[in-house]
Every structure is written in structure tokens, then in C-alpha cells.
């Protein structure tokens, strides 16, 4: 890029042009220019444009018309939106702790030298690289109401077939199972890395002292994992609030809208009903919710983590 200019400078034949390229300001901006261009176009511009769209009646096809705060006002009185928020909250409240404590237990179990450990770890990590679409399809088949293996096994034990994804009172809980399976490995990786950062002596002391192993874990190791737990709570919550892929592939928000979570609802608004302005207003509210939740979690977490250390 500026190599030719540089060589000239170093060999002492500095012309004006060379000095221009050697300046830190120019070099800096040359280095960042591709990133600035692309992040500007696909990162910054859409954020601002989205804010404008959220004040518009925008059908995606023709240009929008300004409607002020109408989208945000409509949102307050939209029972479908309120219901989708409730479902998202139920999902998040189940998904985050189950994944978190499940991963903690699994990470502790995996954090030792055993025969076959490589196999166990591969088994736990493999879902992480499996696409959400494939995960969704696999579980649709496992939990198929008519021919799925889970129902066939239940039948053998005299339990009648369940609707699972096709039963409005079960579908959302089944989605929790699918996503916990898909996310567990990620959380385990993070916990394992943190556990391996804890001095070996502490782990061994806790393990040898068999009588109080359980208490030692919660008193010694768990507090040391505080920052990791905090990160995972924040990260898992952010992703839980954005749940979409599995819903789209498995239930399309059904049955009877029982799995229409907030991001699926805004997707429907934008691309099924062409209410892009309204959809974007919802998206901004989700963003705001994520920001507030993250700040609250960090504040509470910092306090807890601080007290224990």
C-alpha cells in the first residue's frame, strides 16, 4: 500500500509525497479505511436509518411516510406484542439458568484427567458447530408427535403420545430443550477455560477433602468463577432475547402463536405483513431491553463478585 513510500523515506530521499504517506494520520486512516467504509455502510448507517424507519410507516416496497411516535405508541397497546414479550421472558428465565448450571456441572465433570475424556468433550462440543437449522430439524424428528422416537418409547411405557411442538402448552418448553442442547457446549467451553485458570492446588485441596467437597466447591471454586458466570449470564440472556432460528424452522411461531417470541413477531411484522416501520420500532425496544438488562446484570454481578473476592 505505502511500502514504496516507506523505502524511499528510509533511504533518505524523502520527497513531499513520501512524507505525506509516512505521517501517522495518513497511515492510520489508510489502514482503517476498508473497515471504516464497510462498518460505516453496514454497521453505522443502518443503525441510524433504522431509527428513522422506526418513526415511519414503511412497507419495504415504497419509501416510508413519517408517523412520529405512532409505532412506539401502537406497541404499548398491542396485545400480540405483549404476549410475545411474555413468552420471551418465560423462555429466557428457563433457558439461561438451565444452560448455566447444566454447563457448570458438566464443566466440573470434564475438568479432570480420565480415559475417554477426549470423547466426552467432543460429545459435549459437537452441538456447538451444528447449525441451528440442522439442530431444529433433528429435534423436530425426535419429538415428532406421530413417529418420533421419544413418543414411540413413551408408548412402550404406556404413556400416550405427546404433541410436543404441536401442543400449545408444550411447544415453548420443547424449544428450551432444543436450545439448551445447542448452547450447552459453548457455556461448558467458557467454564472449562475458567476452571483451568484456578490454581491446581485449590482444586486438589477441594477434591481430597471429600467430606466437604460439595461445600468446598460452592465456597472456594464457584466464587472464583464469578466473572465467568457473570459473562455467561449476560451472553446467554442476550442470545435468549434474540431467539429466532429454531422457532422459524420448527414451529413458525405456532401452534396458536404459543412460540411467537418477540423477534419472531417482529420478523412477521416486517416480512409477512410488510410493517417494516413497526418491526423496526420493536427491534429498537428489544435492543433497549438488552442494554438495560445487561447493565443491571453487570451492576448486580459486580456487587456479588466483589463481595466474595
Amino acid at each position: 500500500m505505502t511500502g514504496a513510500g516507506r523505502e524511499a523515506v528510509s533511504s533518505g530521499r524523502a520527497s513531499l509525497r513520501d512524507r505525506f504517506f509516512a505521517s501517522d494520520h495518513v497511515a492510520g486512516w489508510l489502514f482503517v479505511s476498508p473497515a471504516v467504509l464497510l462498518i460505516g455502510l453496514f454497521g453505522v448507517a443502518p443503525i441510524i436509518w433504522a431509527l428513522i424507519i422506526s418513526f415511519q410507516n414503511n412497507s419495504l416496497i415504497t419509501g416510508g411516510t413519517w408517523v412520529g411516535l405512532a409505532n412506539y405508541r401502537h406497541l404499548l397497546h398491542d396485545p400480540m406484542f405483549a404476549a410475545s414479550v411474555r413468552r420471551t421472558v418465560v423462555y429466557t428465565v428457563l433457558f439461561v439458568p438451565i444452560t448455566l448450571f447444566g454447563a457448570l456441572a458438566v464443566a466440573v465433570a470434564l475438568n479432570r484427567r480420565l480415559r475417554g475424556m477426549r470423547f466426552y468433550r467432543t460429545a459435549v462440543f459437537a452441538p456447538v458447530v451444528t447449525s441451528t437449522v440442522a439442530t431444529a430439524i433433528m429435534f423436530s424428528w425426535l419429538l415428532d408427535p406421530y413417529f418420533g422416537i421419544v413418543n414411540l418409547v413413551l408408548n412402550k411405557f404406556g404413556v400416550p403420545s405427546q404433541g410436543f411442538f404441536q401442543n400449545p402448552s408444550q411447544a415453548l418448553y420443547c424449544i428450551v430443550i432444543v436450545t439448551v442442547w445447542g448452547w450447552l457446549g459453548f457455556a461448558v467451553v467458557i467454564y472449562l477455560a475458567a476452571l483451568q485458570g484456578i490454581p491446581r492446588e485449590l482444586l486438589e485441596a477441594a477434591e481430597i477433602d471429600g467430606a466437604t467437597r460439595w461445600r468446598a466447591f460452592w465456597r472456594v471454586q464457584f466464587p472464583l468463577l464469578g466473572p465467568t458466570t457473570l459473562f455467561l449470564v449476560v451472553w446467554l440472556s442476550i442470545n435468549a432475547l434474540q431467539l429466532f432460528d429454531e422457532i422459524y424452522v420448527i414451529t413458525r411461531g405456532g401452534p396458536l402463536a404459543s412460540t411467537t417470541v418477540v423477534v419472531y413477531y417482529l420478523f412477521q411484522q416486517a416480512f409477512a405483513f410488510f410493517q417494516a416501520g413497526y418491526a423496526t420500532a420493536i427491534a429498537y425496544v428489544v435492543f433497549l431491553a438488552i442494554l438495560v438488562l445487561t447493565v443491571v446484570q453487570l451492576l448486580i454481578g459486580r456487587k456479588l463478585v466483589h463481595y466474595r473476592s
Partner: protein
Amino acid sequence: MSEIVIGPKDLRPADIRPGDLAESRRWVPSAWHLALIPLALVMLFPFFWLVVTSLQTVAQSRTFGLHFGLQFHNYVDAWTQAPFGRWLLNTTVVSATVVVSNLVFCSLAGYALARIRFFGSGALFLVILATLMVPFQVVMVPTLLIVRGLGLVDTLPALMAPNLVTPFGVFLLRQFFKTMPVEIEEAARIDGAGRLGTLVKVVLPSMRAPLATVGIMTLLWTWNDFLWPLIAIQSEKHFTLQLGLMTFQGAHTINWPLVMAGTVTTQIPMLVIFIVAQRWFVQSLATQGLKG
């Protein structure tokens, strides 16, 4: 970061020294297996059932019991009924472009933000940090309008363009460049190397782990991305594997063995890469957790 060794490395017999706690356990099967075996079975069962079903006939798949059919015709049928080869090619082209582009441009930007003091660099870094926090749903509609304005809707470049430089990559690499000692770079510069030469010849070779993290995370996201292709692509010939798989399942809901065969073939490339490079994958995920 470099201290994290999860995976095959800590299983080598050579690592287990006399006096090590593990020594006493080596010949006595640990009780942990009682918990770990069921765990592994639960995690692997969906994959196992996926493969078993893909080798069955429709009739076999609907009755209880293990029918280890060897009906490879499902695979042949899946590949003749849907252009999986084409989708695989599309996904590979898009992912490869995005990964290479991120490695190059995130390195350049991350290096400049960490090392070069230039006008506006502080503000620029804050702006990039801000975009990192915004969820995709917020920018989904305007991004579609921008891509449409560029005339890229329903083309492969539409899938590449928004991800060519990710704020995550810039941020992560900047953090790592910051932690590197400056002295080596200064020595190279005194020897007459330019900024670019220093970056390419001196700095990047010692940044393999963070570069691998950016490469692997970008690959995973792009390869498995679903929402953006769903919005940006309409014609079947421009589908990615995930989008194609979703429509394939939608079109053959009653023929689960066929759908399973399609699913297996779409997941094999990433699973193979993962098993071969598991240590790097795990390290990348952990890095994302600690820095992201």
C-alpha cells in the same frame, strides 16, 4: 489466553507424571464415568438417530425398534432432488470470502487502532464498539434496503457484503495487538520496515491464535447463518446450505429419512473441520468468552 489447553493435549500419557493426582486414578475406573457416559449419550443421541434414520426406509422409520437399514438411496435421492452441491459451493464461496476479508481488514484496522496514533482513532474505536452491541434485528430492514440499493439482493455478494469486516474481529485483534510488546516492532521499524511490512512480517506471525479465533468464529457464523440469507436470498440457486436445508425439510416433511440424509450431508463439512481442529475451535470459543 495461551494457557488454555483443553482437548487432546492434556490427555497425552506423557503429561501424566508420577506423583500426579491422576496417577492413582489411571487404573481404577473413576466414578465420574457413571455421570459422563449418560451425558455423552444424551448429547450424541440426536446425531446417532439422525444417521440411523437417514439409512432407513420411510416404513422402517415409523416403527419402534432399531432398523439398521443400509438404504443409501436416501442420500442419492436427496442430492438428486435438491441442488445440495450447488448450495455447498455457494456456502463455501461466501464463507471463504468473508473469512479471508475479515482476516485481512480486521488485522489492518485492529493494528492501526492499537498502534498508530492518528486523528480520530479514539472516536473511531468507540463507534466500532457501539456497533458491536447492536443486535442484528435492529439493522435488518435498513441493511436489506442498502443491499437492494446496491443492486445486490438475491446474489451471493449480498451474503458477503455486510460481514466482510466484523466489528468483533476489529475489536478482538486490537485487544491482542495491544498486549504485544512494542520493542520488536520498533526494532523492525528501525531496520527500515514500513508499517505494513512490520505488520505482515513481524506482528502477524506471532498472532496465530487470535487470527485463528477471528477466522473460526467468522467461519462458524457465516456458515451457519440463517436469518440474513432468509431475508436476502430468494432464488434456489443462490441458497446457502442452511437455507436450502430448511426449504428441503419443508418440502419433504413426510419423508423423514430423506430429510435426515440431507441434514447429514449439510453438517458433515463443519463437523469434519471441527473434529480435525477441535483444539483451535475450543480455544477460539474460550477466547471469545474472555475477550468478547
